[in-house]
């Protein structure tokens, strides 16, 4: 199936098996391995990307659903070699340990801050409730998102 879509501002027109998941398209067709698979059923959030402004689990989006869509992945956050403020704050606050949840966590936070630039603690927790982290108690992650928001 011919699919037209945009990933990180670049346009793609590819012949892709529509039964694949967006996660497979990113990882296997575009070699963007920053998006991770943790459970394959939308429960852990490691594969979160932003599609038309909303955070989605890319393991639950079929390739057939991405036609005409604009997708942003973790690889697209860095602009001209400069990290996004969220990425900087995740590093600065020690919000990264094993790093496997990090891409999804940052993408969920990015979608949250785009919609609500000054979330309170509860709103941040709700914004990342679909993202599991096993290394931390979420404290550093909350602090990083708060520091990257305009509510700090």
């Amino acid at each position: 199936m011919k699919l037209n879509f945009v990933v990180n501002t670049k346009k793609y027109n590819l012949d892709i098996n529509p039964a694949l998941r967006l996660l497979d398209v990113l990882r296997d067709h575009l070699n963007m391995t920053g998006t991770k698979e943790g459970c394959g059923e939308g429960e852990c959030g490691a594969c979160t990307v932003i599609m038309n402004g909303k955070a989605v689990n890319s393991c639950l989006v079929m390739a057939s659903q991405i036609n005409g869509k604009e997708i942003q992945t973790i690889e697209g956050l860095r602009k001209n070699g400069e990290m996004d403020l969220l990425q900087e704050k995740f590093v600065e606050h020690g919000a990264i340990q094993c790093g496997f949840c990090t891409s999804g966590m940052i993408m969920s936070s990015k979608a949250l801050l785009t919609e609500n630039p000054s979330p309170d603690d509860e709103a941040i927790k709700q914004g990342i409730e679909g993202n599991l982290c096993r290394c931390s108690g979420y404290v550093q992650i909350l602090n990083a998102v708060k520091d990257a928001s305009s509510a700090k």
Partner: protein
Amino acid sequence: MIKKNRYIGRTYPIQDAVTKACGEQIYAGDMKSPRMLYAKILFSTVAHAHIRSIDTSKAEKLEGVVKIFTHANSPAKKFNSYHFFAGQELKEDERLFTDKVRFVGDRVAGIVAETEVVAEKALKLIEIEYDELPVAVSTTQALHDDGECIHEGGNLIDTKELNVGQATEIIAKSFLKFKDTISTQKVHHGAMEPHVCFVRYEMPDEMSIYTPCQSAFAVRNVVAQFLGMNYCSLRVVKTTMGGSFGGKQHVILELIAAFLAKETRSDIRLCYSRTDSILSTITGTAMEMEMESAVDENGKIFATQVNAIVDAGSYLANSVDLSIAAGKKLFRTYDIPNLSYKAKTVYTNTPTAGGFRGWGAPQITTGFELHVENMARKLGMDSISFRLKNLVKPYDEERLGRFSLGNARIRECLTLGAEAFNWSEKKKKSGKKGRYARGAGLACGGHVNGFYGKIQDCSSMILKMNEDGSFILNTGSHDQGCGTVRSFMQIVAEVLDVDIDMVKVLEADTQRSPYDTGTFASRVTYVSGKCAYNVSLKLRDQILETAAKYFNRPKTYMAIKGGRVYLKGDPENQIGFGRLAALSQSVYENEIIALETYSNVSNPGAYAAHFAEVEVDTQTGLVRVVDYLASHDVGKAINRGMVEAQIQGGVQMGIGYALTEEIKTDAAGNPKSTNFSSYHLINAPDMPDVKTLILEFGGDDGPFGAKSVGELAIVPVIAAVMNAVNDALGTHLCHAPLTPEKIIAAIH
């Protein structure tokens, strides 16, 4: 004058934080090669059966299928996934692909195909006929006289005993005694990265295995021995770890993938799904414990006896070792003059148990801390003063192994933690008010610092100085995502007084690194960290010796500061590290390089006291942990922020252990928890703000006085939370996890 540390004790991000934040860090699952094939495993769907027939012909005809392996065309030879050092004696009871399935999730066939999609299709085309056998999902069923043998020799694998004094006799004669029965469940590690391995096959018969593991040398030993390869021809490279917590300690995927690579002479990628990772790797061990203690009128426990049953699941792995480890950990935190521990280890038709954060300590501590709390309540004593009558003191001798517990500061953890948590005020608020009940609970816990006193416990490292004054520390260590590499960078930078960014730390690669026992028993900071410290001292000495030649003065005249050597009293007379390394090569024809092998010399206790406040909804049975404080005796924090993060992560895992997490099976052995929708990890909205109190008394043999923390962080959590729930409800619930069903049943 005490020198102020430049690097030790500060907070640094994990060393690869930037590439992780940008999605550019490569994990094993991201690795590819042009001639890579995909492997998939077919797992059994019944819990106990002989395979009558297995027909792979339809699957083999599928285009893109390269080869399929079953018990019929793979070695009958057995292995044990816990074989991690040379000379270790362990019963081997596991095959690559079994002819008799022992749990739902047992490996039946391995498929190698050109694509993952084809491999998955092929899985569904394999036809198996089973001759089903009676199933034992509990240790009681397995130990019943009529129980079907899961392995030859019966379901009781072993019985181990540890004894100090005359506990049984004393308890029999005592009047004031208390008895409790406690159990903990099978749990999943929940590392976000599912289990994965990538093998590169190289002609004529060499292989490289890329794996997120806890001991590359263990992987090498198991694989090379099983496949009959030379250790020098098998390269095992530790990849970025996407979380392990003990789960990736056992050698399972690496052996299967290496076998498939060797047979097909191809590169192999083997990636387990979440369900496979939960059921078909290893689980945290379920334990049943009966505890009885005799107490004198002042609240001193003078005898305790424990009867425990360890559920090994369907294969041995390390369960007998765990039964001993759990018992030994009883002797670390409380000083009980008469203590008797007896543990049976039993096969069941459930997922195999193995390594897990704390290994035996979360279980035995949960048991004992619930028992202690129950005794305190019945004696009318408060939780803290009863414990203070019984906890160990600094430099006490551990009564079983007769070694020093070092600067054991559990008492300070408890008293200072209680103050910081506002414990007595919180206790006053306990009880039910309308629909919600509040309660506060605490628990103490201790843990080890390496294997000293048990088995080999050594690390080797090579440190060299480059011609620009930068350093490379070559280790056989494994950063589990908790900052080992960064800690080593801090240690080297501190000892050599050089910019931390001038230090590069390499991790395990069995062809290129010196040997390391591996990431077990909370030994990394305490033992490997000390090796990093010692090798830095050795290199420092070489730097001074080289400078002595340059300055033509004795080395005692030299001092090091900021990456330079200068003459004491004449700081202008100096030479930079880089120039010195270059001179050493070109003029003195010598490389500045040091090798150190360090073997652990002690095993002090690391301690923690944890405090939880909960709110129980008496209508739904749901528990919310509303406040939490973890007070830890860490000796010395090397990377302070990472210590806090480790503790908070342990608390998150422990709250799940106490309330929601369980790998359950039904009576037929069918798993009920197969993904994160049916196995609940605690997410951000359900986590309290976990406060930490980090106590640094030093005094032991770790680098700069540091002791272990990462495993210990989960040890007291389960009991602290369960004690808080019991405090809220006035119950004595002793079987983890405290699910809403159990809580509602207890209320009504």
